[in-house]
C-alpha cells in the first residue's frame, strides 16, 4: 500500500485522462479528413438541394468544424455517443449489445493464449538450445507468420466445409429447432465460438511464448534457481515454482501490449466468421463513413487499452517489490 503514493496515482490518472482526450481529438481530425461524408449514403439522385440541405442541418454538418468538435468532446464527456445513420440506432445501444459478444470471443482467446503461450515458453526457455526447443520454436514462428484470415479459411475449409463438424459463421444457430433455455443457448454459443477461438489462438499464443522464452532463459542463471537446485528440489519444481514465477512478470506487461494485437486479430476474425461484435462494425463503419459509430468504437477500444495500461502499472508494484513508481520511475 505504501509503495504507491496517492500523488503519483492521481498524476497517472490525470495523464491517462489527458491521453484519452488527445486520442479523441486525433480521431475527430482523422475521421473528418477522410474523403466522403456519412450522409452520402442517405442522399439519392432524385433529391433536391433543399432536401440535402435539410439532412445536413439535422445531422449538424452546417455548423463550423470547431463547434462540431466542441460539441463532440462535450457529448463524449457526458456519455452521449449520438446516433448511427446506417444502423439507425443509438450508438450506445449498439455498443452495449455488441461489446459482450466481442469480449466473449476476445476473453476466451486471451485466456487460452496466455495459458498455452507461457507454458510452452517456460519449457523452451528452460531447455534452450535443445533439438526440442529449436524445432518447436521454429514451428511456432511459422504459425506466427500466417495471416489470420488465411488460417481461418483453412480451418473452415477442413472442419466446416469438408467434415461439417463445427459451424463457420454467426454466434447462434439462425433458426433453432431446440428449446431456448440457458443451457441450450450456452451450448449453442460454445458450438459457434469453437472455430473462431481455435483460429485466433492458433496464432495468438506465440506472442506470449516469445516473451516468456528469453526471460525464462535469463532466470536459469539466477542465484535462487541455483540454490533451489542445491536444496535437492526436483527439476520440475525448480522450473515451475522458482524460475517460471519470476519470468512471468514481463509476460504480464506483454499481455497488455498484445491486447492491441489481439484487437487486430479479432477485427479480422469477426469479419471472417460473421461474429456480430465490435470488430465487425468498426471496419464497416470506417468504410461507410459512419463517423458516430467509428468514433465510439475507437473510443471504447482506446479506453480499454489506456485503462489496462494504468492498471498494470499499479498492479506491478504489488507483484514486484523491486519496482518503485513515483520516485522518478
Amino acid at each position, binding site marked *: 500500500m505504501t509503495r504507491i503514493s496517492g500523488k503519483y496515482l492521481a498524476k497517472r490518472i490525470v*495523464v491517462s485522462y489527458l*491521453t*484519452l482526450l*488527445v*486520442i479523441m481529438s*486525433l*480521431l475527430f481530425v*482523422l*475521421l473528418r*479528413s*477522410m*474523403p466522403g461524408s456519412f450522409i452520402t449514403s442517405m442522399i439519392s439522385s432524385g433529391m433536391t438541394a433543399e432536401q440535402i440541405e435539410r439532412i445536413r442541418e439535422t445531422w449538424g454538418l452546417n455548423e463550423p468544424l470547431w463547434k462540431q468538435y466542441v460539441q463532440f468532446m462535450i457529448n463524449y464527456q457526458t456519455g452521449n455517443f449520438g446516433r448511427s445513420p446506417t444502423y439507425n440506432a443509438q450508438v450506445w445501444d449498439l455498443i452495449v449489445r455488441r461489446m459482450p459478444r466481442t469480449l466473449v470471443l476476445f476473453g476466451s482467446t486471451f485466456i487460452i493464449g496466455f495459458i498455452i503461450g507461457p507454458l510452452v515458453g517456460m519449457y523452451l526457455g528452460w531447455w534452450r538450445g535443445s533439438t526440442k526447443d*529449436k524445432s518447436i*520454436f*521454429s514451428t511456432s*514462428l*511459422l504459425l*506466427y*507468420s*500466417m*495471416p*489470420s*484470415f*488465411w*488460417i481461418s*479459411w*483453412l480451418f*473452415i*475449409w477442413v472442419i466446416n*466445409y469438408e467434415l461439417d463438424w463445427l459451424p463457420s459463421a454467426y454466434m447462434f444457430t439462425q433458426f433453432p429447432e431446440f428449446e431456448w433455455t440457458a443451457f441450450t443457448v450456452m451450448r449453442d454459443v460454445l458450438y459457434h465460438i469453437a472455430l473462431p477461438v481455435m483460429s485466433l489462438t492458433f496464432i495468438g499464443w506465440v506472442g506470449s511464448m516469445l516473451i516468456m522464452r*528469453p526471460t525464462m532463459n*535469463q532466470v536459469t542463471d539466477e542465484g535462487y534457481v541455483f540454490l533451489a537446485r542445491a536444496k535437492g528440489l526436483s527439476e520440475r519444481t525448480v522450473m515451475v515454482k522458482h524460475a517460471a514465477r519470476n519470468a512471468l512478470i514481463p509476460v504480464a506487461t506483454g499481455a497488455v*501490449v498484445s491486447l*492491441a*494485437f489481439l*484487437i*487486430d486479430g479479432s*477485427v*479480422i476474425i469477426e*469479419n471472417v466468421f460473421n461474429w456480430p461484435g465490435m470488430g465487425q462494425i*468498426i*471496419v464497416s463503419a*470506417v*468504410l461507410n463513413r459512419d463517423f458516430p459509430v*467509428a468514433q465510439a*468504437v*475507437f473510443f471504447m*477500444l*482506446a479506453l480499454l*487499452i*489506456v485503462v489496462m*495500461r494504468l492498471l498494470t502499472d499499479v498492479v506491478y508494484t504489488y507483484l514486484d517489490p523491486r519496482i518503485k513508481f513515483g520516485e*522518478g*520511475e
Partner: protein
Amino acid sequence: MATEQSDSGQDGRSIRRRWEPRIERLRRGWDRYTEHKIGVVGLIILIIYALWSIAPGVFAPHSPDWVAYLGEPPIKSRLTGEQIRSLPHPPAFGDPFFAPFGTNSLGNGVLTLVIYSAQNAMYIGLAAGMLSSLVGVPLGLISGFYGDTWIDEAIQRFVDIMYGLPFLPFLIVLVAIRGITTTNIIIGIAVTSWLNNCITVRGETLSLKERSYVESAKVAGASDTRIIFRHIMPNVLPISFVFLAQDAAGAVIAQASLAYLGLADFTANSWGLMLENIKSTGYVFKAWWWLIPPGIALMLMAASFYFIGFSMEDVTNPQR
C-alpha cells in the same frame, strides 16, 4: 621507385591492420549466426524471394498476363464457354496448357502470380520495416538520453497516445484518407508500428548512458548529438535490426489483412490481392490450388524475416 614500393607495401599493411579486426569480428559474427539453423534457412528463403523480385521472368513459366488456352498477350481470340467453365483450373496432367499450380478464375497461372507478387511483398516489408526503424530508433535514443526531462516525457506521452489507437482499424483510416496505393500502405504501416522500437531502444539507452565510456565522452567535451549518434547508437543498432526484421514481417502480414478487408492496391500483383480475389470470386473453399500457394508464400516471407530477426537477437545478445 624502391621507396614508393615500400610505402605502398606499408600502406597495404596498415590498411590490413586497420581492417583485419573488423573483418575478423564480422567473420565471428557470421559463425555465430550460422550456429542457428533457422537463421540460415531464413536467409536462404529471403535470397530466393529477392531473386524472384529482381527477375520474376526468369523463374515464372509465363508472364502475369498469360491466359490459359490462349497463351501470352497480345490475345486475339476469346475463351469459349466451355473453357471459361473449366476455370479456375486445378493442376493436372494432360492439360492443353502448362500451369504447374493451376489457374485462377481469369485463367492466369497461380505460380506465375505468386512469383510476380514477391516484389511487392519484399518492397512493403523492407520499406515499412526501415521507415519504422527510422522513426522509432532516433526517437527512442533521444527519449532515453534525455530520460526524466520534458523531452522524454513528451515522447513517451506521444507513444502512449499512439498505443491507444488499435493498429488495424487505425491503419484502415490512414489508408482510406490518403488513397489505396502501395506507398500509402507502407506509410500507414510505418506510422503505426514504430512504437515497440522506440520503447525498447529507450530502455537500452537508459542503461547505456550510465556506462563509463559515455561519462568519459561527456567529460572530454563531446556534444549531446555526438554522444547519442557516435557512442550510444552503435550499441543500440543490433537490437533495432531485430525489430526491423519483425516490423518487416508484421508489414507483410498487415498488407494481406488490409487486402482481405478490400484495401489492396489493385494495380500491383500481391499475395494479399490474390487472396482477396479468391474471396471476391467465391472460390475460397473450392479452389485449394489457388488458396494455398499465396498463403504459404506470405507465411514463408514473414517467417524468414522472423527467423533472421531472432537469430540476430542471439548473435547480438552480449550475455552469450
